[in-house]
């Protein structure tokens, strides 16, 4: 089984490393990180370089497509080489998935029109601009399309997909293997669980990140 993770400049590492850690353990799976060109790809922080093993054009008809998000999302969704590849892969994929604002890239491919989907909460309106219905859930499945909410939700998405693709026992074993028994120090990971001050502080920080990236 070929699993393709689509990297692009300024993606967010945890978006794809969460589900990678689950999906790469599927027996017989060949997970590959891809980018426009094989080689180093820099993440959103500018301080981490992940290697793309192959170029997009080197892989066709993967069974699973995974698109992470990150501040580089808008540049990626405006890049026809990336969106054409995802659109083409989606025609034959068994599963097409995204984490965080990777959903915007699927949206730009026209894949989410009329469907329920999730993304990072701060990009809900942008997701709807592609004709999707933003759904405030951690993982949303519509047929073979599975979208995950922001960043860390990719782990939940990956486990959900592993259960669908292999079986629940396998997914549970992997959940145990990565010791996913989360106990976050705070209960504030969603706007509805947070305070307006915290939400505002984050929106300001994210805004300046995007300006820096633009």
């Amino acid at each position, binding site marked *: 089984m070929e699993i393709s993770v689509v990297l692009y400049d300024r993606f967010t590492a945890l978006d794809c*490393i969460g589900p990678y850690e689950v999906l790469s353990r599927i027996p017989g799976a060949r997970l590959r*990180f891809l980018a426009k060109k094989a080689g*180093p790809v820099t993440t959103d922080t500018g301080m981490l370089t992940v290697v793309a093993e192959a170029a997009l054009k080197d892989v066709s008809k993967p069974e699973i497509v995974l698109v992470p998000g990150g501040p580089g999302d808008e540049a990626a969704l405006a890049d026809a080489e990336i969106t054409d590849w995802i659109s083409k892969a989606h025609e034959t994929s068994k599963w097409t998935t995204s984490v965080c604002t990777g959903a915007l890239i699927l949206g730009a491919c026209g894949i989410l029109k009329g469907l329920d989907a999730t993304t990072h909460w701060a990009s809900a309106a942008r997701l709807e601009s592609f004709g999707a219905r933003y759904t405030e859930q951690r993982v949303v499945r519509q047929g073979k399309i599975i979208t995950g909410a922001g960043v860390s939700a990719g782990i939940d998405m990956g486990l959900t997909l592993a259960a669908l693709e292999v079986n629940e026992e396998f997914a549970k074993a992997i959940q145990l293997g990565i010791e996913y*028994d989360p106990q976050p120090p705070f209960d504030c990971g969603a706007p509805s669980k947070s305070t307006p001050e915290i*939400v505002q502080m984050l929106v300001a920080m994210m805004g300046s990140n995007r300006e820096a990236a633009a």
Partner: protein
Amino acid sequence: MKLTIVIFDGFTTLDAIGGYESLSRIPGIEVEWVSQQKGVIVADTRAAGIVAYRTLDEVKETDILYVPGGPGGEPLETDEVFLGHLRRLDATSTWTFGVCNGSALIAAAGLLRGRKAVTNWFYRHRLAEWGAEFVAVRYHRDGKYVTCGGVSAGIDGGLYLCSLILGDALAKTIQLGIEYYPAPPFPERTPDEAPADAQAFMHAFDTQGGGLGLLDLPPAFSGEFGVVQRSITSAAA
């Protein structure tokens, strides 16, 4: 403030990325990925690679020393050169952070003697060999040492360390940013409560890369990247 993440052949990617994703959001922080050699360091699955910008030799001091785990950590438990680097960098660090059996490496360096610490569940019996006492929690602080349980526990422990460095408000902001209100599809339970066959499978996974001898496979990546991209400009451009 400088965060130094020590990676090695056969590290587990999420061990490193889970904590990195929150700690790298500390305003003004500089993150460096280091290993015994520069170049692409290949993870336990042989399907992921991260570039080490610098060698351990080149790092003179750091503020946060971060040691992830993975099956590739086991041979390093007796590698005196590697452990010597951990001791040297720990001497100047404000915080020393271990995830999974990365905590065991910190212990093997002699740094957790007489302290309480946590490591991956299947490794807990090992800590006593190095004079540390295992505590069955998600993450634990003992002095400047913050240690975490297996793999994904680095996310929780990373946010906790953020709160120690930045205070609760900024740490909460970072937690909201990574949208961490986890909802695992299966009921949370400790490894001890898992069925025996699942425990056996995962023990092999943790110690031998799934019992498949993954570490004996050739890395998917070869070659080195002479110029490492540290700027935000596209590596592919």
